[in-house]
C-alpha cells in the first residue's frame, strides 16, 4: 500500500488515539509532577452543638489567591515518585542497610504500600494468566467434541462467568464464602474448624481472588480458542490420524502449534487486564490482605477529604510503565514473527 493511501485510511484512528489516549496520558504525567500548595493556616474559634474550641483552619481566601497564580499546584519534580507511598527510595535504602538477612529486607520492603501492591499485582498476573490460557484451551477442546445439538447451551453456560458483571460476580462469591455462607460454612464443617475464614486469612483471600480471576477470564480464552479450533485444517488432522497419531498427539502436534498465535494474543490481553486487577478487591472487600496498583490509585482519589491527584497520577504512570515492561517480551516476539513473514 502506498504511504499516502495508508495515511488516508489511518488518520481518523490516529487522531482518536492522540485525543483519547496520548493527551490524557501526557496530562496525567504532567500532573504527577505537582502537589498541592502549602496550606495557609489560621487559628479560629469554632462553636457547635458540643461546645466551642479554637481550631486550625485553612485560610480559604489566601489559598484561592495562590491557586489563581499557579493552578497546577506546587512543582515537586519526581518527589512524588520517590516518596514513601510510591517507590520509597529512602525507605528501601534504609531497609537494605538495616536488615541482617535478605528475608528481613523483603519483609521491610513488603510493608511499604507500593511494593505490597506491586507484589500482589504481579502474583495475580502471573498465576491467573497461564491458568486462564490452559483452562480456556481445555474447555474449548471439550466443547468442540460435544454433539452439535448440545453445543449451543454448553457454550452459553461456559460463557456465563464473562457475561456476569465482574463486580456482581465477585459479590455473589463474596457472600457464598462468608462464614455464614454456603461455601464458607461447608468448609468450616469439612475441616471442623469454626474459626476458618476465607475472608480473614491473607493466604486464603489471595487464593480466592486467583480462583475468581480464573473463573471470570477463562470464558474469554475459551471463546478465542473455540473460534480458532473451527479453522484447524482437517486434512492435516486426517493425515495425522492415518499416520496413527493418538488424540493427544494430534492435539499436541497439530492443534497446539496451529493455535499458538492465538495463545500469544490471549496472553497479551490477559497480562494487560490482570495487571490492572481492581474489581475483585472491592467486591471481596479484600483491601486488608490484597491491594493492587489500581487499588492504590482508587484509594488516593477517593478516601479522605482531599483527592491526592499527584499521588494518583504517579501511581498511574508507574502502572503504565509496568504494563509496558510486561508486554515487551510478547511484543518483541510478535515483531520478529512479523519480520520473518515479511
Amino acid at each position, binding site marked *: 500500500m502506498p504511504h499516502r493511501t495508508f495515511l488516508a485510511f489511518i488518520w481518523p484512528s490516529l487522531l482518536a488515539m492522540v485525543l483519547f489516549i496520548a493527551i490524557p496520558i501526557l496530562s496525567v504525567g504532567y500532573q504527577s509532577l505537582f*502537589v*498541592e*500548595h*502549602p*496550606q495557609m*493556616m489560621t*487559628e*479560629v*474559634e*469554632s*462553636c*457547635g*452543638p*458540643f*461546645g*466551642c*474550641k479554637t*481550631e*486550625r*483552619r*485553612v485560610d*480559604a*481566601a489566601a*489559598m*484561592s489567591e495562590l491557586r489563581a497564580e499557579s493552578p497546577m499546584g*506546587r512543582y*515537586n519534580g519526581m518527589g*512524588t515518585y520517590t*516518596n*514513601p*507511598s510510591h517507590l520509597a527510595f529512602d525507605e528501601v535504602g534504609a531497609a537494605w542497610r538495616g536488615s541482617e538477612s535478605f528475608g528481613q529486607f523483603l519483609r521491610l520492603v513488603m*510493608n511499604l*504500600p507500593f511494593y505490597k501492591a506491586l507484589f500482589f499485582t504481579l502474583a495475580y498476573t502471573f498465576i491467573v494468566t497461564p491458568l486462564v490460557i490452559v483452562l480456556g484451551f481445555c474447555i474449548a477442546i471439550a466443547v468442540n467434541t460435544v454433539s452439535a445439538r448440545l453445543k449451543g447451551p454448553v457454550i452459553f453456560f461456559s460463557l456465563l462467568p464473562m457475561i456476569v458483571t465482574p463486580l456482581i460476580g465477585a459479590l455473589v462469591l*463474596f457472600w457464598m464464602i*462468608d*462464614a*455464614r455462607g454456603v461455601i*464458607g460454612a461447608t468448609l468450616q464443617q469439612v475441616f471442623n474448624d*469454626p*474459626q*476458618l*475464614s476465607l*475472608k*480473614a486469612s*491473607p493466604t486464603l483471600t489471595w487464593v480466592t481472588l486467583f480462583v475468581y480471576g480464573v473463573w471470570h477470564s477463562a470464558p474469554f480464552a475459551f471463546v478465542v480458542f473455540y473460534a480458532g479450533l473451527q479453522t484447524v485444517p482437517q486434512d492435516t488432522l486426517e493425515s495425522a490420524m492415518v499416520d496413527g497419531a493418538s488424540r493427544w498427539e494430534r492435539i499436541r502436534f497439530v492443534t497446539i502449534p496451529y493455535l499458538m498465535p492465538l495463545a500469544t494474543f490471549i496472553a497479551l490481553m490477559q497480562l494487560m487486564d490482570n495487571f490492572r486487577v481492581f474489581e475483585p478487591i472491592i467486591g471481596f*472487600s479484600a*483491601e*486488608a*490482605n490484597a491491594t493492587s496498583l489500581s487499588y492504590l490509585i482508587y*484509594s488516593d482519589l*477517593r*478516601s*479522605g*477529604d*482531599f483527592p*491526592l491527584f*499527584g*499521588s494518583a497520577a504517579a501511581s498511574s504512570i508507574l502502572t503504565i510503565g509496568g504494563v509496558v515492561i510486561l508486554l515487551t517480551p510478547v511484543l518483541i516476539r510478535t515483531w520478529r514473527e512479523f519480520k520473518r513473514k515479511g
Partner: protein
Amino acid sequence: MKDFLKASVAITALLASAGIASAECGIEKGSVRILSNDFAALHAIATAAETCASDTVKVTKNQTSEHKNIQVPALTTNPASYTVAVIATNSVVPLLTGDLVRPLDDYVAKWGQDLQESQLIRVDGKIMAIAFMANAQHLFYREDILADNGIAVPTSYEEVLAAAKTLRDKGVMQNPLASGYKPGWDLAAEFVNTYLGTGGEFFKEGSAEADINNDNGIKTLETLKEMSTYMSPDFVTYNANEMRPIWEAGDIAMQIGWGSVTGAYIAEDSPSPEIAKATKFAAAPTIGGGTIPSAALWWDGFVIAKNISDEDAEASFRAMMVGISPATAEANADAAVWLVKGYEATPAAVGVVADMQGGARPYPMVPYMGLLHTALGDNLAEFMQGQESAEQALADVTAAYNTAAKEAGFLD
C-alpha cells in the same frame, strides 16, 4: 392508654406537617437542590422540604452515600449544582476549606426563629452551618442474654471483654461481639472513637504533625484487637451496615454501632421482633479506667452553597427550615437524636444521649483529620490480623499520613 396517646401525638404531628405543606412555606420563587447522605432522618427532612415545592419553587434532591465525593466538585461550579449540602462534622471541612459555602447570619436572623443556639455552627464568629441531629457510636446489647447470664450492662471495655468471655465460657455464644472493623473508613472510625476515650490528642499542639504513636495509641489498638478475638472470623469484612442482619439473626450479644440506625434495630416491624424487643442501648464503653465514653460525637447539619443566586439561597434556607422544623423532628422522633427545639429523647436515642451526657468528645474538625483517618484505615488491618506489632502499625500510619499531608500541603 399509652398507645392511644402515642397515636394521637403522631396524628397531630402528621396534621401539623400537612398544615405546613399547604402553607407552601411562604417562599415566592427559587430553586432548591438538596444533596445529602442516604439514611432515614435525612429522608424525612428532604420530604418535608419538598412540601415547599410550588409552581414557582422547584425542590429536587439527590440522596446518596456518595455525597461526600461529589459535594466539592458540585459546589465549585458556578452556579453550583446543589444549593443545599447536608453535611456532617467531617464532610463540612472540605467545603469550608474550599470557601464554597455562604455565611448564614442574615438568614438565621430573618427566618431562624425555630433554631436553638446550640444548632448554630459558628466559625470565626460567622454562622456557616446549621446542625439538626447528633450521632455517635455506642453500645448495643441484648438485655435478655445479659440478664440470663447474670451480667450487668458493661460500662467499660474491660467489662465488655469480661462479659464476652463469660458468654463464650458458658457456651452461650462463641462470638458474642461485633463492631465495624472493616479496613478503611470503618476501622479508622473505631480507632478514633476508642482513642478519644483515652483522652489523647491526635496532633501535636498547633501543628499538623500526627501524634498517635504513643501509649494511648497502643492501648487503643490492643483493646480493638482483644475485642476482635470475640468476633466472627470474618470481622475484617464487616462494616457498620453489615452487622444488622447478623444481629437480627441473634448471633451477637453486644456490639458497637451507630446511633442513627438504632431505630431500625428496635422497630416493631423488625424481621425478628423478639430480638428487637430485647435490644437496648447504652453509652460507649470507657477505656483503661477513663471516665468518658470512647466515642466521637458527630453532628449532621446543612450548608448553603456560595455560588448560587441570593434568591435560590433564600429559598433553600427557608425550605430547609421547614425540613428541619420541630414538626419534622416530632413526626420522626425515632429516626435520630434531634438537636431541634422541643425534641425529647426516645428509647432509640438512649445511647447517643448517654454518650453526650458522659462527656464524650467531638470528632476533630481540623482540615487534616480526614488524611489521618484515611491513613488509619489503610494501615491497621495487618495489626488486627496479627501480622505486625502495634508500634509498627502506628509507625506505618504516621508514615502514610506524613506522605499524604505533605502532598496536600499541610506539612513541610
